[in-house]
């Protein structure tokens, strides 16, 4: 049911995938100030899952993702749309950024905002869309 892989790939994937996923979240969150952002982070995460896909096959990757990538697209678009409305309720134009900075104990400022929500939506959509294609293609290959 799976492609013949090498033991190097198999071992590497088990260590790299969590790191890559973590890195993608890092990229997502720092995106507003440093190179990064939802789109890039989404591609990194998709890359991580693809590595897993190549190593262990589609069924196991689906298992790892827990969410059907198709649903991920929908969730992503939905979250993206959510960020559209807060501004409208304030009487501003759609998509105008809203900021709710929170001071955490220890002097760290947590900048919650609609662009962040939007970025998360982009992230999920990118992961979902890429993985939908990848898994579909792999499954077609495996048959």
């Amino acid at each position, binding site marked *: 049911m799976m492609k013949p892989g090498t033991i190097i790939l198999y071992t590497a994937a088990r260590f790299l995938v969590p790191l890559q996923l973590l890195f993608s979240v890092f990229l997502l969150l720092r995106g507003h100030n440093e190179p990064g952002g939802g789109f890039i982070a989404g591609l990194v995460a998709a890359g991580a899952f693809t590595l897993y896909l190549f190593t262990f096959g589609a069924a196991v990757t689906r298992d790892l993702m827990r969410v059907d990538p198709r649903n991920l697209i929908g969730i992503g678009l939905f979250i993206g749309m959510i960020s559209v409305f807060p501004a409208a309720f304030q009487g501003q134009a759609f998509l105008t950024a809203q900021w709710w900075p929170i001071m955490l104990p220890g002097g760290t400022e947590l900048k919650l905002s609609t662009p962040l929500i939007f970025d998360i939506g982009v992230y999920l959509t990118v992961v979902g869309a890429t993985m939908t294609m990848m898994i579909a293609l792999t499954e077609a290959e495996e*048959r």
Partner: protein
Amino acid sequence: MQLAVLVIYLAALITPWLFVQHQHRTAYIMALVPAALTIWFATHIPMIAGGEVFIQEYQWIPGLDISLTMVLDGLSLMFALLICGIGTLIVLYAGAYLKGNPAQNRFLVILLAFMGSMLGLVLADNLITLFVFWELTSITSYMLIGFNHQSAEARKAALQGLIVTVAGGLALLCGLVMLASMAGSYSIQEILNTPETLTEHPLFVGMLICLLLGAFTKSAQFPFHFWLPNAMAAPTPVSAYLHSATMVKAGIYLLARLQPELGESGLWTVLLSSFGAMTMLTGAFMAVRSTDLKKLLAYSTIMALGTLTLLIGIGTETAMIAFAAYLLAHSLYKGALFMLAGIVDHEAGSRDVTLLGGLRKNLPLTAILVAVAALSLAGIPPLFGFVAKELLLEAMLDGAFHSFIFVFVMVASIFVVTVASVIALRPFFGAFKAPKAEKDIHEPPKAMLAGPIVLVLLSLVAGVIPGTVGNWVTLPASNAVAGNVVDGYLALWHGLNLPLLLSGISITLGLLLFKYWDTFRNRLKVLDPIIARGPERGYFWFMDAIVWVAEWQTHILQNGSMRNYLRTIVLVFVGLTGYTLISRYQLHWNWDVDLYFHEFITVGILVAAAIAACVTRSRLGSVAAMGAVGFSVALIFILFSAPDLGITQILVETLTVILLVLVLFRLPGFSNVSTTRERIRDAVVALLVGVLIMFLIMITIDVQLFEPISGYMIENSYTLAHGRNIVNVILVDYRALDTLGEIFVLALAAMGVYAMIKFNPATSPGANHYAGTLILEEKKLAEKDIIHSLEEIHQKMLEDQNIISVGAMNNRNSDEDGDEEQETLASSYDEDRDHDDSQAAKRLEDDERGKKDAAQSDEEGKKS
């Protein structure tokens, strides 16, 4: 007034729920809505008659000057009363007519939606709003005409009506936009009150033609009249409502509405009079030829619509008085006659007058009603039709060029008398003739008779007291059409004058013609070949031409070859952009550029990889070369300080290469299908694009058309958007709407790829394509293929590499039967095992088939 329209739409919305409980009685409940609105509009009569105009403002899209402002003046009020009043009767009638039809609730929903749209149309003050309602009536009428959608004839008629009216609607939209740009406002009230005359404007002729195309197609004027008789495929309530009193009069309404502003133009007068007269004559002539009751009525409706257009074209005060009176009279008797024709059809089983006769004993009330309504149609006192006809003749005699129009009107009135006699006498007198047995024919239910009774009584009452009706209803409408207060009155008896004499002549001649109707009709058959070459031929020719052009251009542009598409797109791009570049801008050669050594190296790799991708003879090689190109580009991005772009490029490149590798196996073997000449041509095309892009970049560096917005973005990135990474701030804040659109496109693309793979029987044998929904069969794996844990994967991997022999693995499994974890997993799968086995067998078969398909497509690929 906005509320009035909304109420009807809401009624349409709740109809399906009511229908579940009340079945055909829903119609009787729903009739209350238009009935209440009729009363509400009727309460406005005294004020409107006193010269008041009600305006209710409501903003819709203020930035585009589009509002939902509604205006109630004499003309709107008369139309509103007709729409709601006749609408009430039609809904009642439909309740009984379609009783037991399972699609009746659909019918009521569309009928009410149409009613709301029509009401919105006559009340709207904004040209764009008017257009929206105009198109809504077209769409709802399409669904109503095609109500019996199992019948090919109904579908064809509905489509024809839709195409003709919507094509006209398109022209109308152009006309309305031109009108608004000329007058400087989209509000009809403001346009009518604008002091400057529009006739001198250079756009005037174009605007007028576009407007008239819209109005003429909607109101079935010659040469677009052919769709109306065909639309008789609709159920009778639809014909009675849409094709007598409401929709076809929308075009007339628009003409009447704009008459005060445009009526001064000579062109307006000439076009309206000539097309109106032509339509009138065509309608009357075609009516006399017909034997189907509904066709008779439809053609006489075309005649009436032509008369109304003609009256607007004449444009004198008398003509305006006649216009309003004629419109009211026609709506009353024609609505009644259509409903009665439906009753005859419903009860006797046919609408063909040659197949009917002597029904007066079985349908006494219907016979009387038809007779009275037909008297109004023929214009015989004391009915309102007579008053209207007298005014019409008077207006003709006053008119500017009465000589030839006068002949047309006389011929038409003679024919109409004949038509009226045919409708009133043929089915009801003489020997009994009907497809149904005599004892089965009886009067219809009360709900079906209510409409005709009310309308016929109104015709009669209005004929007896024309002065009152005139003062309260039609004269205010005439005032609105004329744009000033008209001086006139409606009366049954105008004294012994020329119109009365002409009326008498036309009635006598008409009756004479009726006597010899059958012979006359047979004689007219000589003309059949000419009629067959009528405007409808033009319609079919036009439709064929559209299909032919579509086929031709698809053949040229969409021939299925990817390279052809690319070449077309690229060459068009090069042609247009290149032309603009050369004609507008000057190129400055600037070779004075400092390049570092590593930049040379990167560019060198880039060029080498690109060339390698072109000349390589293996797929994998070209994929790798393309990857190298991508990564070099990413390197260049990073070198020129665009890290975000660089990262994105690398990631996209990586995933693209992976995707390509995945599909690589699906592609047919590498083969050279193009000749050397083709390859040289492709190389030239590619070089052209490359050179063009180079020029573009050089010019963007050289020429600055606008102040770059990047300055603003850099300045405000941190202060306004709280982000130091400008690229990301642009993505999620400055241009968030673009990004939103992009992620939707991305989602759609993913769905497209998914569908392409999963809908393909070769790649997805289990897919169920039933009813357009994609239901994937759960993929069943053979027991040996199921992997329960990562540990097992490890085992399998070792096995594949012959580190552990297959036998050893099996032994190991059987040894570990005692292992707790393993056992729970195994048992949970045991439950499904029986099921799985049968599935596995099936899957094997499917696999076989899939492989065969793939092999076949491979071969085909090689051949081509």
